[in-house]
């Protein structure tokens, strides 16, 4: 599993952004069921960190 992830995401920024996307999809489910935006906020946090990493990627 670890090796597959490493093959797909060669950079930390890619993995972080992928997680941001997953959390946005999760947030849709939680917002629909509970009305809570907690996963949405986590997703945005990952996104911001991911963009910072992407900007400094070589």
């Amino acid at each position: 599993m670890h090796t597959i992830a490493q093959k797909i995401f060669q950079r930390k920024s890619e993995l972080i952004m992928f997680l941001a996307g997953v959390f946005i999809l999760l947030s849709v489910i939680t917002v629909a069921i509970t009305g809570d935006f907690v996963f949405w906020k986590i997703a945005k946090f990952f996104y911001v960190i991911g963009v910072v990493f992407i900007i400094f990627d070589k």
Partner: protein
Amino acid sequence: MIGFEIFGMESYQLLSFGRQLGLSVMGAASLWAMVFLYLAHNKKVEDSAGIFLTWIGLRMRWLVISGGFLAFVMWSVLTMILPVAAHEGVTLVTSKESILSAMNFMTPLYILIVGFLLFGLAKYKNPYVLINSKKGISWFYISTFILSSIAISYYTDLHGLPTNESFFHVFHGFHSIFTLGTVLCLDFMFLSTQNAPFVQKHLFPLFPQISKVIWIGLSLDLLSTLLIFPEAALLTPRFYFAQIVVGVLIINGILLSGIITRRILKNIKEGHIERSIRWERFATVAGAISITSWMSITFVDHFHDLNISLVLLFGLYVLVIAVIIIGHEIWNKLDTRAERLHVNM
């Protein structure tokens, strides 16, 4: 006044979407053509990359001209009818009056835009006039970029609005150049060079840098929504659709700009044509998802009273992706211009 309403969508909102789409393509094409021509200018004379970058940079003027004319036509009709906008399903609804006021205020700018476009069109046989510069800086593309940036950012009257709302509207309008427009330009470049691996070899290494700008553009949208969240979040099918599509967009974007681009480049470099074609098929699907997603979220955000179910929205979304993939394959078979360039080299 001629107008219609279907599924909660009004004609002025459709025109507003067309205006934003046109300006985003015009702005992004100007930006990237400017970058390519500058890079080409700084290549050594014997480096063939300079020729290919100039070729694609000049070819992008057709995107500038077509996007600009689309925006101008939509603006012309809008000043007689009217618009609105927002992304991620988190929306500030703007009034018809404030948008009409902004459109009228921007009249000299749109006239200037159409003047530049007509000049670009008139020089279609001698496009080098547009990039005539000793430093590799194209006056034409700089002008069209600045004009489209202002026009797309000022789509509603900002006078008297709280600071956070003003920033929301400016970021919200401008980011389309970095996102929607740049994605469409990327696909244009991908389409233009799909039969020309010798051009791809010089162009594809720039794609990761171009995608950085798309991610920054999406950040501008994120910042703008945080400025007005949570009071602007309405839990409608439109909101859920936009959120799901943004999630898909991020996952798809990271795969496209990451592993897919890496594999294509590796295969081109090593001369594995068949493997390269297989990965290009993945790129075609990912590109179709990317374009459809950006178009969809821009589209639904223009229709705040949209009353289409989530299932139907996704049905249309998948249908458009399928049509783009098929259209892409047909284009790929018909377009031989890149091959001719190879023959002429």
